[in-house]
């Protein structure tokens, strides 16, 4: 009986951790961001407003123009 309770607790804990991870990942994906890839394989991801804002503005303009 006790081992069943422990097992249930473990499953609930693991489920909540997995749910939180998925939620955070989805939230991060929804955030506006800029990912720049270079020829040498490096990548720069810009999410901070100070870095990303000028590029986000340009991209918004492109979306507007594209309709």
């Amino acid at each position, binding site marked *: 009986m006790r081992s069943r309770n422990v097992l249930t607790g473990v499953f609930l804990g693991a489920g909540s951790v997995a749910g939180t991870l998925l939620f955070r990942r989805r939230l991060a994906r929804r955030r506006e961001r800029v990912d720049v890839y*270079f020829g*040498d394989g490096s990548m720069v991801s810009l999410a901070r407003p100070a870095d990303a804002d000028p590029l986000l503005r340009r991209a918004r303009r492109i979306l507007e123009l594209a309709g």
Partner: protein
Amino acid sequence: MDAAAALARLREISSQVRSAVIFERGGKVIGSTFADEQRAKDVAGEAEALLTEAEGQRGAADGPAEFAQLEVALHGGSVFVVRDGDRLIAATTQPEPTVGLVFYDLKSSLRDLDTAPTPKKRAAPARRKPPTGAKKTDAKP
């Protein structure tokens, strides 16, 4: 394959791409999905400015590297710019696209263009060597 055919194929294989412009640095538009030529030029101009700013984001300590591709994810959709040689393609998609797939499709479109047979200039006819010896003549003595 010409630009119009490559773009038609792109729209056929990628349902996520809403619009696209193929252009060269300097703003020369090679082809686009827009009916309006001016709009295509404007999008190409903005895309070029976007990638110039993106290139500037690489830290000076990282050393110089060529731009390959970028994605700007917005709530209203995403903007992609992909480079292959001198050619670039800028595309817009729906929000939250399958990023890897879109990059692959855009790159394929640019490569389709590269494989297009370019009209070759006809080689100039080989010059005849001036005769060095005595001329043969049919005239009989």
